[in-house]
């Protein structure tokens, strides 16, 4: 009888053990992800009226409410992701009119008047701007909004930055750009959103593909070096691959895989075919040169206007002049204009308020360059 009862006891233990083993064990990462998901659904009413941020963010709050509702009611996950990134981008819109490089982190705004800045995120969440550490701990009583989970860097005209993210990915961000990324990357995917232009050197992580989202295209990568150009004014998005491999997808789920030294253009709602090109054409801006090959003058000037506070208005007679060449962006602007004037046979007439009229030189006949 005793043996029997000991057996029964063992059986009971075995049963309990099997049930225990049957339970799921959740990794820290998965709990973190689920918590992030929950946290974003929480809206905290603003209690601290003294902060000036309240006024500038009150419009943003309305947009974030929109974001929270669309998060609840939209069904397709892909669509949710697209709405949220764009709405988040919009919530940072109001802050973009400064002429200084601006970093928005945890609801705080950090500015630097330098022309070229280096921003680094270390693995353990320490953020430095030009070697100066930024205090990112926020008091619990501070306003907490969905946009606080995202950091935003705004690079105005004439400025550039080197940005290193917490996973080691390096970005060189060109003028007239805005880049938005979560403070903490999700465990299974790394996403950033960009308007403008940046050159990426993505840190390798096979568990978490890196995705660059622009207004029209998604670029999915795995440890790679590439360039993204998405300026509204140019009405086209260009992705150029230097090293590695990327997959480029548009909203209609068309996708294109790029091999090194290939580039693809998205224009007028259509994703083109990959083309072999000289990558330096699209990436030398990183070292300070702007290279163009059979590019209409209008486009060359639009790009130049990103580096200076000038707007160009081209005469019909000159706007389609095709130019090929290389400009050193760091030289004196007047020199650049002089250069263009001589090469293209155009004249620049200042009209005040930063407006420059471009027309053909009165003297001599026009010889189309290249």
């Amino acid at each position, binding site marked *: 009888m005793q043996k029997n009862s000991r*057996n029964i006891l063992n059986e009971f233990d075995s049963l*309990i053990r099997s049930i225990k083993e*049957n339970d799921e064990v959740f990794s820290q990462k998965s709990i973190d992800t*689920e918590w992030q998901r929950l946290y974003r659904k929480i809206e905290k009413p603003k209690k601290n009226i003294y902060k000036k941020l309240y006024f500038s963010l009150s419009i943003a709050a309305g947009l974030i409410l929109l974001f929270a509702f669309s998060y609840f009611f939209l069904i397709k996950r892909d669509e949710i992701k697209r709405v949220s990134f764009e709405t988040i981008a919009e919530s940072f819109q109001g802050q973009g009119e400064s002429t200084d490089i601006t970093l928005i982190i945890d609801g705080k705004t950090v500015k630097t008047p330098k022309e070229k800045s280096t921003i680094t995120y270390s693995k353990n969440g320490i953020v430095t701007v030009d070697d100066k550490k930024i205090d990112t701990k926020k008091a619990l009583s501070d306003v907490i909004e969905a946009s606080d989970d995202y950091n935003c860097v705004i690079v105005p005209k004439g400025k550039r930055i080197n940005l290193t993210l917490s996973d080691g990915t390096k970005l060189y961000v060109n003028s007239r750009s805005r880049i938005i990324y979560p403070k903490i990357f999700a465990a299974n995917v790394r996403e950033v959103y960009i308007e403008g232009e940046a050159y990426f050197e993505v840190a390798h992580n096979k568990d978490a593909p890196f995705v660059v989202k622009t207004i029209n295209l998604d670029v999915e990568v795995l440890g790679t070096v590439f360039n993204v150009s998405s300026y509204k004014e140019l009405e086209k998005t260009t992705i150029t691959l230097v090293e590695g491999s990327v997959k480029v997808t548009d909203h209609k789920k068309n996708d294109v895989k790029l091999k090194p030294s290939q580039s693809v253009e998205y224009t007028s709602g259509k994703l083109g075919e990959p083309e072999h090109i000289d990558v330096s054409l699209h990436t030398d801006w990183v070292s300070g040169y702007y290279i163009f090959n059979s590019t209409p003058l209008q486009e060359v000037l639009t790009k130049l206007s990103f580096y200076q506070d000038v707007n160009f208005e081209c005469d019909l007679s000159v706007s389609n002049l095709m130019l090929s060449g290389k400009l050193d962006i760091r030289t004196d602007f007047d020199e650049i204009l002089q250069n263009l004037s001589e090469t293209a046979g155009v004249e620049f007439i200042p009209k005040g308020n930063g407006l420059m009229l471009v027309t053909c030189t009165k003297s001599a006949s026009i010889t189309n360059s290249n």
Partner: protein
Amino acid sequence: MDDYQVWSLLLKGDSEALKLIYYRNYDLLLNYGYKLCRNEELVKDCIHDVFLKIFGNGKLSMVDQIRPYLLRAVRNMITEEMGKKGVVNCVQFDINVLLSLESRSAESQEGQDDEELRKSHKLINSFSKLNNNQKQILYLRYVKNLSFKEVADFLDINVQSAMNLASRTVSKLRNILQNEMK
């Protein structure tokens, strides 16, 4: 920080407190939820809904014990959601604590020899002969290690009844196992 302190912070609207409660009870709530309903999405969403409710609720008061409170809230939320959806993806409306075990033990069968397998099948069969309350009390008390006070709170009975239920369940299980062994 003990549960009482964390809950007080939560009443003041501290989201870090909510986070702590979430992390501390995630395992319990999710595993319990899966025993009620096999639809992972539904369970996760119900848990989130519960947390949103308690965080956004201005009338929330001090609670005796957090775990039974959360378990009951999750159980009610899941029951409600299952009701709305009919019974798609979820097994019967009855609370069957062990159905997920049957499907999962099939997965863990690699690497186990026949003897072991037969044994665990027998054990599982015995367990499924218990009723809802008996299954839940065994699971919460012996697998999840809740105190008798907590289990009693959850089942809405007094502590003495909970202890009696537990010992009666163990005896019943013993009988079933004895019969199985014959």
